[in-house]
């Protein structure tokens, strides 16, 4: 498992090389570089290429790749695999992501590290199956029932699809939680050059292991140490409310409250360590208008911001790299001297509403659905309209 000789031998053939590939494929290679031991999935556009590439390549590195009967099973299998100590993942799109929700909640409640890739396509339902969208932003946050937190990252290039797989697995292992790579179909199917890192630069986060006999589901720390199957610890893993020792207790109010709050807080209290944003602030610092975007939409957004600057307008730009936990502090700070923020997204305004909650200035949603990403002109026009 992990970085054994088989894995290193395989990666030695790839390190430091640059290839032209799809975002989905970059995600697959990124997973292998991240030490992914197990993939379980079910075909769906526009995420199938993640499974196909892993099916081809992961066994060469000694990892296991299987196709399950559906997405419920895929999500279940990666949780089971994770308790053996392996790094495990799945990849899907909207319809499959919907089917995974119950077992995502299970992974949250049992504090199981694992990674999900959601290559978003146009919904609801089967929608425009082959067209990109960013419609699952809120489903990623709240898709499974009950109070919880989630970590979700949004790449905007094939290179980031590659790089973020390491980040996802490291966050999953550090915080003992499922982590979502919240891609969109545009980025999944973009074809760009991707540079593989040197093997020596890979620093996988290790899971904190519980000492023999130590509680695996509670204790002093926000993130308890884990134990794996076959270690003789008789670990009891349940999605029911449980005590620190893993035993069910579904009636005592404070047991439930303490468990759910700790699981919630382990992400909330570490948000500043988790969150990444990227800013491109207008040179003279006089901007009254800002643009916030993420994923594929960040690309035409930045293009439009630059075009507007060429016209002599002062516009600030921020890209959300971490979607959840939400970069509320960073967004508030970005908004401090602005009168208005434009938020282009490939949905009817999911993240713009989240931004509204944390800023005092006006927030203008620039939505687009229908399966065609925003053009630079469309966002430029939106900027000019409010800036004139």
């Amino acid at each position, binding site marked *: 498992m992990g970085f054994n000789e088989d894995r290193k031998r*395989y990666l030695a*053939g790839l390190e430091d090389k640059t290839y032209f590939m799809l975002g989905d494929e970059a995600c697959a290679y990124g997973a292998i570089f991240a030490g992914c031991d197990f993939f379980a999935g079910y075909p769906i556009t526009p995420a199938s290429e993640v499974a196909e590439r892993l099916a081809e390549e992961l066994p060469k590195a000694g990892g296991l790749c299987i196709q399950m009967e559906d997405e419920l099973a895929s999500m279940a299998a990666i949780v*089971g*695999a994770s308790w053996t100590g392996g790094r495990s993942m799945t990849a899907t799109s909207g319809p499959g992501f919907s089917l995974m929700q119950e077992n995502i909640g299970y992974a949250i409640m049992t504090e199981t590290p694992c990674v999900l890739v959601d290559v978003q396509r146009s919904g609801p339902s089967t929608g425009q199956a082959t067209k990109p969208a960013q419609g699952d932003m809120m489903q990623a946050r709240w898709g499974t029932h009950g109070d919880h937190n989630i970590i979700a990252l949004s790449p905007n290039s094939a290179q980031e699809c590659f790089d973020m797989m390491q980040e996802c697995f490291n966050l999953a292992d550090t915080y003992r939680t499922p982590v979502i790579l919240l891609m969109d179909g545009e980025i999944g199917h973009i074809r760009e050059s991707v540079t593989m890192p040197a093997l020596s630069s890979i620093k996988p986060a290790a899971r904190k292991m519980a000492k023999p006999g130590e509680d695996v589901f509670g204790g002093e720390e926000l993130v308890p140490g884990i134990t794996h199957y076959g270690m003789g610890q008789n670990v009891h893993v349940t999605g029911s409310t449980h005590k620190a020792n893993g035993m069910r207790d579904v009636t005592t109010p404070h047991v439930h409250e303490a468990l759910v709050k700790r699981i919630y807080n382990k992400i909330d209290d570490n948000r500043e360590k988790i969150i990444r944003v990227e800013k491109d602030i207008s040179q003279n610092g006089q901007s009254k208008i800002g643009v916030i975007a993420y994923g594929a939409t960040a690309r035409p957004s930045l293009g439009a911001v630059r075009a507007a600057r060429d016209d002599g307008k002062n516009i600030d730009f921020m890209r959300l790299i971490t979607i959840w936990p939400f970069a509320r502090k960073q967004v508030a700070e970005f908004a401090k001297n602005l009168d208005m923020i434009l938020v282009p997204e490939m949905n009817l305004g999911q993240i713009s509403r989240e931004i509204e909650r944390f800023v005092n200035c006006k927030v203008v949603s620039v939505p687009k659905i229908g399966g065609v990403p925003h053009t630079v002109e469309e966002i430029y026009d939106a900027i000019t309209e409010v800036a004139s």
Partner: protein
Amino acid sequence: MSQPRNQMMNYIREEIMPHRFCPGCGCGTVLNVFTNAIDNLKLDPVKMVCVSGIGCSAWIPSPYFKSDTLHTTHGRPIAFATGVKVMRPDLKVVVIAGDGDVSGIGGNHLIHAARRNIDLSVFMVNNMIYGMTGGQVAPTTPTGVKTSTTPHLNIEPPFQVAELVAAAGASYVARWTTYHVFRLIKAMEEAITKQGFSFIEIVSQCPDNYGRRIGLRTGVEFLKMFKKQAIPIDKARELPEEKLEGRIIVGKLRDRERPEYTSELHRVTKEQVDKIKAEQEKIS
């Protein structure tokens, strides 16, 4: 005078006893049978993972059996167990769950695991009802039975789950009842030892939420009924279908060798690893 300690308590998480099963419930019998099978096989529970779903029967291993346990979502234990097994082929992975869990909501996982012939042992406790939720109709409830969601009597025919699993490709399939404890112990030993997907349908009793509705008040009444209804599979094969109405066919339905999924998966994976190794050696 204190009673001598039951040897089987070695396999039980004793600190959480007494168990929560209703009086007369078949789950206690299944737990007892299971510990006896493990004891006879001299299996170290440290080398086992018990996986279950949601339901009364799912509580047999979770939390009572002392091994690594995975108490999963309703219907999905076989899918969770698949991830455990392929990653740790050296561990015995056993699924114990209810008829609703395994053949209703989780039926798709059941037939596909059987088709793959993955080396799991699945013990389905068939009490012919959704016990935990209060006695609603299950895919295994006999036609004509009144349940809380079939107040005008069940119009659906019940699933023959053992036959279904045999047809789907499992290596080992048997059906016994909670009356046949010694046969059941033996069958569990065979199932756990078998390489490949092994499945035992354990016809069991739920006096509270099923018996109440069909006029059987106690576990004993159920056992007497099972004794009467049981017909060995060899005998059953000689009888026309209409003569089997209301009978429970017991015995071994399948015991055969077929390629096993986990070892096949590791074989093809190793082939790929070896190919890379050979390529690299050629270069250097």
